[in-house]
């Protein structure tokens, strides 16, 4: 496989509704931004591109089959190769990896990955119903299909197994909303307290409205290229490209029906031992995994991506993470799946300084005073909870923020420097579907490596 680079990215304005543009024009908003950032016009770049990958999650929300080709056509990339990628909430992460494959395999030199979702075309309740159709329509949906309910059941078990608290979950909400305060791309830029999160209207006990991301309209684009592709872009623009290397790719899966998660042994990350999950602390003397408190797909994706990138101690060797925080609870579960802490320690990790940005004051005394504050900032962008979750675009949005972090261009793109992770050399992005059905982890590194 050949080295693959992300060379630029673009994000449309995310909002509850974008009736001002069709989905094609939303894609163009993100795509043209990414191309202009390379110092090129769309027409010139399209001459260089070898094809593209387009992602969107829901045919129900789009109410348009083959919307992928309509976006490709609008971007001016016909008759070049292309396909649509879909995999629930991980759609964007999968799209990035499909573009990576096209280049790594030698099939293409330059391949844009563009994703979108327009969720405002139905009301929130109908939207909940559409999303719940991403659970088994024979055995899950008819029981009372509601994704927030599914995740709430997971975290109730997490609380029982590990002693995780709703207040620890609220720390994630405070962090991500506060980070977003410094990110003009974000939809919800709020300074919150743990109390406000807990006192927000209850959606699915114990998750409140401020524990949950919102449906959005939006698009995002990531431009990927080979060594040769980078040279072509540089020749056309007369400018040097700030390359971000994709050094690790991982993907895992699990059963659609959450009730179908078996109870087995934990697959270990390089920094873990089998003994970590054996002993009195665990019911029956052994952690029953994945159960519904953990995501086997997320661990699988992490194991693969870390192995490829040569990561042996994720917390020490990754400078920041953009992960799929559709729920504050799933951010906590994902800390554990990605090995930022051990299983059972996610709640404590959330309420420690480690996943917070070192230079921002959060109004959380234990966090702000923690000497380990900023060890590995998680969701410096504000994540899904604050940026929004236009599903097909979300995983690509994470890639764009990670790319800007590693190019050290946060100030340029956000017009504010606050969420720039200082000396960021290696970032991980994590995209997640269903109740943990498809999960992707990709590792991105700045030029020069770590």
């Amino acid at each position, binding site marked *: 496989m050949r080295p693959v680079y992300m060379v630029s990215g673009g994000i449309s304005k995310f909002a509850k509704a974008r009736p001002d543009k069709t989905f094609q024009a939303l894609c163009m908003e993100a795509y043209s931004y990414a191309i202009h950032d390379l110092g090129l016009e769309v027409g010139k770049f399209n001459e260089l591109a070898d094809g593209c990958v387009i992602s969107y999650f829901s045919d129900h929300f789009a109410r348009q089959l083959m919307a992928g080709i309509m976006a490709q056509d609008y971007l001016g990339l016909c008759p070049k190769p292309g396909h649509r990628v879909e995999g629930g909430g991980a759609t964007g992460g999968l799209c990035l990896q499909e573009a990576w494959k096209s280049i790594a395999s030698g099939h293409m030199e330059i391949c844009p990955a563009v994703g979108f979702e327009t969720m405002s075309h139905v009301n929130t309740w109908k939207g909940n119903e559409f999303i719940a159709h991403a659970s088994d329509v024979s055995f899950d949906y008819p*029981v009372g299909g509601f994704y927030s309910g599914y995740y709430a*059941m997971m975290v109730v*078990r997490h609380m029982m197994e590990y002693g995780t608290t709703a207040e620890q979950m609220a720390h994630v909400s405070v962090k991500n909303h506060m980070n977003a305060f410094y990110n003009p791309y974000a939809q919800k830029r709020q300074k919150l307290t743990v109390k406000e999160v807990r006192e927000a209207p209850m959606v699915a006990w114990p998750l409140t409205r401020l524990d949950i991301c919102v449906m959005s309209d939006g698009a995002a684009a990531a431009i990927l290229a080979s060594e040769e592709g980078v040279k072509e872009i540089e020749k056309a623009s007369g400018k040097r490209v700030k390359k971000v290397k994709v050094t690790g790719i991982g993907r895992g899966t699990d059963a659609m029906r959450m009730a179908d998660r078996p109870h087995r042994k934990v697959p270990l990350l390089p920094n873990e031992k089998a003994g970590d999950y054996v002993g009195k602390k665990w019911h029956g003397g052994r952690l029953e995994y994945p159960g519904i408190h953990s995501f086997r797909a997320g661990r699988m994706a992490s194991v693969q991506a870390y192995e490829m990138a040569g990561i042996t101690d994720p917390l020490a060797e990754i400078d920041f993470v953009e992960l799929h925080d559709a729920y504050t609870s799933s951010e906590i579960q994902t800390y554990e799946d990605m090995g930022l802490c051990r299983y059972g320690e996610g709640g404590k990790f959330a309420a420690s300084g480690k996943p917070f940005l070192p230079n921002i004051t959060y109004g959380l005394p234990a966090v702000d005073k923690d000497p380990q504050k900023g060890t590995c900032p998680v969701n410096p962008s504000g994540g899904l909870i604050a940026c929004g979750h236009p599903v097909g675009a979300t995983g690509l949005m994470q890639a764009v923020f990670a790319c800007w972090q590693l190019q050290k261009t946060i100030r340029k793109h956000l017009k504010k420097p606050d969420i720039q992770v200082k000396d960021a050399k290696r970032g991980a992005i994590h995209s997640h579907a269903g109740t943990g059905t498809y999960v992707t982890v990709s590792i991105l590194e700045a030029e020069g490596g770590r």
Partner: protein
Amino acid sequence: MADKKGIPMRLPETETATEVYSLPFPELPKDLGALKGMKPIVVKQPYHIDYIHSYGQDSPWIAGLSNGTILGSRCKRCRNTYPQPRGHCMDCGDETEWVVLPNKAKVHTFTVCHFGSQEFLPECPFVLCLIEFKGCETLLLSRLMGVDPLKPSLKWVGMEVEAKFRRLSKTKPTDVYFVPVGS
């Protein structure tokens, strides 16, 4: 919608609209540039489908519920038992056989849904739960009745529950639901 004294402050928002027969438009050929600033036209497009849905090889499970029996799928080779039916084992791929599951079980986890999908809004708040059966590898998604949804407690986890069956079957998985034992 209402202020603290219960007096309505706003007219309700609905998804009905007035039929429109003309739209404003500039004099031609002038002012075409101004169209770029035009607000979008947003219309309602109804969409309704009746699916002909088959439970396929899982049909006996649904038939079981309407006759007061919870079936499970069992793999002879792996000894896995699945309370949500699977025609083939998730480990070895062998075809499973039907077994009868007990009507008594435990709450593995739960939540109270205060909001939800449009179809279930009238039922809010309702309690979703995952049920664990002794000897089963996996769980069953169901509804928990007989508890106060406004007083949720982690103590509900591990609670002994028993199956209740709808007298009038809806041929849906909610033909069975659970209540605390002895209630």
